[in-house]
């Protein structure tokens, strides 16, 4: 009933090929965008609860957006192209450190670049991640599945090592920790939480749209063909070299940009530990929980993995229960772990499939079958 598309006739190819062919979806999307782009800044400006403190923006929304972006990146590689990767943290780190180098002025051989604008640096950081992604994607032409995961794990450990050991990347700081330059965009300095939030939101929207269109197009179909059965895909004339490496490139690019944002916008000062193996696993869990091969799922997965522990952590205190912090943090592990197990048993395809099922039920409501 809610999703009845009766009467919505598609009279042109454009309408038929739309990202959201159902009108209700489009309305919902525009409303979400309106809330995100207009509602949140308005609520922040008027200090409406829960925006009265910066907590929601700075500790929840900004990391959520950035990690969702990284999840979209990994989802292209793992969800759409079927290449299991444990190197997300490394690609994020490459994005972050390259962006840092470009933003503080870099000399490579005889070429000496001045300090580049932050926006350009972030995009170049993504580009560097894409190049390295292609390099580490080459083994995927020969090895598959778990073996590939181990190969990408090598990337993770290698870059952990590189950024700790090679002082050039940190501009020779004694502690190995670097601080992001001021966030200047076209002469404007992005500083307040709401500005940082909007910055991340713009990045996420642009890249989510890009990713969605890529996976709907020719190249996305090639990725999915490779995922579903690479030999059959090859027989149909899809070049695995091109398909797999392009997936690695696009995915690493997005993850690199996410890494640069994580470092510049969220942390401000970071060390290689911010992008260690735990980050790779976190992103992979987000993809799996959200749903492999779904852009929407990336957002849902990121929200679940990031926000649930934070909320659980605060419940006992908010209710005034006298439980010590160590018990709470252990409880959070237990409950989150149990919820993940439960979810994967009930719906192995993640939140995206849950939503798809729900949508189907809503369409047939009140007579679902």
């Amino acid at each position, binding site marked *: 009933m809610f999703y009845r598309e009766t009467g919505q006739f598609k009279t042109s190819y454009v309408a038929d090929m739309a990202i959201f062919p159902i009108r209700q979806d489009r309305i919902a999307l525009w409303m979400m965008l309106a809330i995100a782009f207009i509602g949140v800044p308005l609520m922040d400006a008027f200090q409406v*609860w*829960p925006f009265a*403190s*910066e*907590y*929601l923006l*700075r*500790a929840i929304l900004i*990391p959520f957006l950035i990690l969702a972006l990284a999840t979209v990146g990994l989802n292209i590689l793992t969800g759409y192209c079927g290449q299991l990767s444990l190197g997300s943290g490394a690609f994020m780190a490459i994005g972050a450190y390259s962006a840092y180098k470009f933003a*503080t002025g870099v000399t490579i051989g005889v070429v000496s670049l001045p300090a580049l604008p932050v926006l350009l640096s972030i995009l170049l950081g993504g580009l560097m991640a894409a190049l390295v992604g292609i390099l580490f994607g080459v083994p995927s032409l020969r090895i598959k599945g778990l073996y590939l995961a181990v190969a990408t794990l090598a990337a993770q450990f290698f870059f952990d090592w590189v950024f*700790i050991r090679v002082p050039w990347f940190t501009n020779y700081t*004694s*502690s*190995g*920790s670097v*601080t*992001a*330059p*001021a966030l200047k965009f076209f002469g404007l300095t992005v*500083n307040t939480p709401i500005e940082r939030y909007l910055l991340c939101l713009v990045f996420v929207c642009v890249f989510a749209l890009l990713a969605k269109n890529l996976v709907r197009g020719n190249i996305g179909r090639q990725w999915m063909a490779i995922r579903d059965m690479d030999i059959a895909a090859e027989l149909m004339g899809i070049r695995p070299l091109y398909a797999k490496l392009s997936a690695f490139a696009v995915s690493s690019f997005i993850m690199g940009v996410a890494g640069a944002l994580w470092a510049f916008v*969220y*942390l*401000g*000062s*970071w*060390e290689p*530990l*911010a992008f*260690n193996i735990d980050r790779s696993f976190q992103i992979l869990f987000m993809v799996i929980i959200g749903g492999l091969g779904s852009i929407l799922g990336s957002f849902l997965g990121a929200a679940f993995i990031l926000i649930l522990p*934070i*909320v659980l*952590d*605060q*419940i006992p*205190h*908010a*209710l005034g229960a006298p439980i*010590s*912090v*160590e018990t*709470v*943090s*252990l409880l959070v592990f237990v409950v989150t772990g149990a919820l993940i197990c439960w979810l994967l048993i009930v719906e192995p395809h993640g939140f995206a499939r849950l939503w798809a099922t729900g949508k189907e039920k809503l369409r047939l409501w009140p007579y679902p079958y």
Partner: protein
Amino acid sequence: MKKLSLGLVAAALSAAAMSVPAMAQQNEQFFPLLVYRTGPYAPNGIPFADGVADYLTLLNERDGGINGVKLTMEECETGYATDKGVECYERLKSKGPTGASYFSPLSTGITFALTEKAPGDKVPLLTLGYGRSESRNGAVFPWNFIAVGSYWTAADVAIQHIANELGGFDKLKGKKITLVYHDSPYGKEPIPALEARAKINGFTFKAVPVTHPGVEQKSQWLAIRQDRPDYVLLWGWGVMNSTAIKEAAAVGYPRDKIIGVWWSGAEPDVTPAGDQSKGYKALMLQHPAGKFAVHGDLDKFVLSKGKSASKDDYAQVLYNRGLINSMIGTEAIRTAMKKFGNKPMTGEQVRWGFEHLNLTADRIKELGFDGMIQPLQFSCQDHQGADLARVQQWDGKEWKIISGYYKADLSILDPMVKEASDKYAKEKNITPRDCSKES
């Protein structure tokens, strides 16, 4: 329906969690406590957190707070992780009627991240013996207070003690000193100071990293056995310290030639290695373990009433350090109250209090910290306030103080602080304050 109601309950719960109940009781000073009571660093995080909390409880129980302002606190578990620490900071920074008094994250990584955020939020950071060494320069880092000592102080004092044991600075020439360090900003901080000393005193310096969390150190100690350095400096934290001692014993490296930093010199660092730790030395952030005058009050007002956070770490090294941390912080608030009146202080006012804090010997005695800490004074320029440290040795049962006070050589360290903080100021576009004009 059942699912729907479950969802509603979940939504209500999460809403309750988001809405931090800001029970704005006016006369309260809020202390945010970033702690880690879980994870690989918990053995060291717990005693410190207990000491911090117990001293605040003591002030509440004995004096009714500070000048009639009650102290409230809330702990947030960081697990020593930087991103979790940032989340905790955001969660706690604006609680209480005047916001957070100051943060002491007890993690160099979190300190680095908060250093970027504190000036914007106007919350001071009190980092007792850890954090950015160059943050001593208050002109560039107005919000950081690296009280009592930095890693550069520690490195310098450690070399001085080695020279003392060898019988003079000239004996250092040609010696080999190896640093075994936690591979993070924490462990890397002392390297420039040690390199500077190596150049001056002519010893060979080598740095050997240990990856987080430090339970795997076999190859490092095998390399040390091959290399046979005259002394090993240990810059570890959590399980890394006891592992290092065990590995040193396994390769037969004499423990009395190992000197740990003051974060590697507490009971949880030596007891897990049992008899193998006998002879192991460590720097002291001035204070030892054991009971002092303040512990009498703690016994009377906190422990006997069952209000202590401590279980079995009472009067241990890190517990006492927690007490000192809270003492310096609350004394800064007291100083601020003298100027701004006896009401809850804002972060800005507390910062003023820190900068004008003068802990004289008399005041320290009055507070019951006599013997734990030497006089300490901050100023606009100097956010460290002291350069003294001692050395202690583990005799198998307890820590024994084996040296007098060493004073770090400021003719070496001051130029380094200046250079590093100038570089930071340039990178971040900060114009240093002119301290001659500050009141």
